[in-house]
């Protein structure tokens, strides 16, 4: 089929739990690939995204590389979506925001129990950490937010099918009700 909807996905400071949940749409994946084509994504191993319709971002922004990836997605995706608690609020990784970065790095690489050859890594190949973990909407413009940790497979399904079929995405209460 020509003109499939192009979708890219990535995980920034996330745990891949959101991606796993996405895969939980199970056999509906077969229906989905009829309609969409995956561009850059952990499931394709394509390294850079180009001209996509939808970008799904899991995880918040914790380092400079996350910023570059996020910008690449923003520049190449018509619709950019924050997926899951980490992308929306910073989530679990943002728990370090209450501790200074210096203390974090010292604990991990200098004074922590069992540290050998203490030194803070310094290599131009390594991305630097931001002093705080940020939700992605503080760094680029985000069009939609899918709540949940992770959002359920049904949330992904409902959201994507709404978009693909040209409806304004809407999540019914059952899908965003957590207790």
């Amino acid at each position, binding site marked *: 089929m020509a003109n499939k909807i192009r979708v890219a996905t990535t995980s920034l400071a996330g745990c891949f739990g959101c991606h796993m949940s996405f895969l939980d749409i199970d056999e509906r994946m077969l229906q989905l690939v009829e309609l969409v084509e995956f561009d850059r994504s952990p499931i394709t191993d394509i390294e850079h995204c180009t001209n996509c319709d939808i970008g799904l971002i899991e995880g918040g922004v914790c380092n*400079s590389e996350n910023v570059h990836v996020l910008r690449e997605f923003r520049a190449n995706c018509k619709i950019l979506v924050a997926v899951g608690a980490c992308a929306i609020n910073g989530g679990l990784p943002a728990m370090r925001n209450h501790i200074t970065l210096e203390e974090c790095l010292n604990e991990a690489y200098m004074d922590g129990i069992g540290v050998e050859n203490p030194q803070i890594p310094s290599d131009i190949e390594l991305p630097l950490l931001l002093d705080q973990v940020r939700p992605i909407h503080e760094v680029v413009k985000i069009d939609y937010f899918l709540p949940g940790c992770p959002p359920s497979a049904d949330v992904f399904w409902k959201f994507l099918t709404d978009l693909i079929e040209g409806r304004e995405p809407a999540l019914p209460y059952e899908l965003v009700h957590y207790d």
Partner: protein
Amino acid sequence: MKQFIQCIAENNQHQSTHLLKMLREIQDRYHYIPKDAIEQLSELLNIPRTQIISVVEFYSFFHLSPRGKYELLISDSITDHMLGKKNLLDYLAKILSVTVGEVREDGLVSLGNASCTGMCDQGPAGLVNGYALTRLDQPACDQIAALINQQKPLVEWPSELFQVDDNIYKSGLLLNQPYVQGAALRAMIDRGIKATLAEVDGSGLRGRGGAGFKTATKWKFCSEEPQTERYVVCNADEGEPGTFKDRVLLNSYTDQVFEGMAVCAAIIGARQGFLYLRGEYLHLHDKLERILEQRRQNGLLGTNIMGVGLDFDIEICLGAGAYICGEESALIESLEGKAGIPRNRPPYPVTQGYLGKPTVVNNVETFLAATGIAVNGGDWFASIGTEKSKGTKILSISGDCARPGIYEYPFGITVQTILNDCGAVDVLGIQVGGPSGTFISNQEFERKLAFEDLATGGSFIIFNSSRDILDMVNNFTHFFAHESCGFCTPCRVGTALLKKQLAKIVDGHGSAGDVVALEELCQLVKNHSHCGLGQTAANPILTTLERYPDLYHSRLKEISFEPGFDLDGALATARRLANRDDAGAHLAQTESEHE
């Protein structure tokens, strides 16, 4: 300390409803609430220690870690800012060698900010160990610093520092009314209680605290409750920035206010009343107690009032720095010795108020009016004002005008008349009703003060054309975020987000969608918050955005998005620790800048 706490608990009959009073004494003596004191109180009062800690943490005048022996707070109201508060605070920090928000190393002094202390007509103002300081300037600061460094007790400080003036510039129906102690009670007894309620009804009096509920209806509902143990509460929390008329009424019309409470008590059948006095008005406390005592001596309070078998007494309860405690159900929680978190309404206080009993809560000015109506009858009051807003309104006028102070006007008065009277020229706009009210522009000066048009609790802050509206909006937005009680998410999180989103625009990081995002956030906070605080917290932004959209849009950049924080700056620590400065160790603020 053990003995001291023991003593306090005994003096308060081990009643946990008096927790705030006990904590106030402990804070006074130790300059914080020590852990051991909490443990001991928890045993003595038989309440969990976590409950005490939550109360300590809730009120801004209580602290879990020591404050200075002299605790100096400077009022952060916009009116204080207009009078040079910022420079003064910096100056104090410098001469006292103390950082704002902290305690000096020797423990002698701490310096901080307080929400509006209600001295807007005589600022910049502050508090030292809870007592109001007015008209602060550099010489006064020098004097204060010297007194602190010499460790002079407050009683030996010069009284000019603490001088609080009434500044009444225009009196009307209520403020001009001659008064003889007991006259309202006398008139009520002669006329009969039912007939007096009918007069209050006929007067059309509506509550002066902001919401404007009809007073007689509230009293009637309460009197019809099956529960016979009932209470009267006078709301003297007056926390709305720019409001200070209740302070003046309590200072100079004290008897009339207490008498209005007694009239209400007789009508609804209450034997106990409370005056909930905001902590910032501590300077009035002893005077109020003296007048209560005098009224008891004169047979106007206590048992068998005026020999007709009425029993009623009034207790003064001091707040501890929480704007939300002006909301009536939060106020009742506070009276019960708890954190001031608004209750679900209904049930309204008239059915389930203090200790779950029917309770009438009214503003200070409402009781003052009730006294006048009891003496002179309903028509006296109803003959003045507009159709839906009878009588007069007492305004607290501050900001850019020649004569800031107290003005009483019949309802229906135009804004322009008020501006002429107080000597305001070159006016840009006015904040009517405080931050939770409305900002009106200079195109709207023919509008009228009345429930039908511009409703107000009395705050009237004037801004001339040298002022930046966004400074004001920013100050108010910070106020709400600071005063949010934290109970519900739309307000707790929403007010913090409003602050952030507004700062993003004001600081020039805003772009195309940011004003829309701000407005959406405003609607969310407004429509989903639990109580009036959250429901009005977005008003400063909404009312100015409506009138001056260009003001907001002119701050936006012509790009699709920019982060609201310094992206490259956020890498500074990591750069230093990794000892790097290569190109890969930096980030451009926006993508376009990069290319």
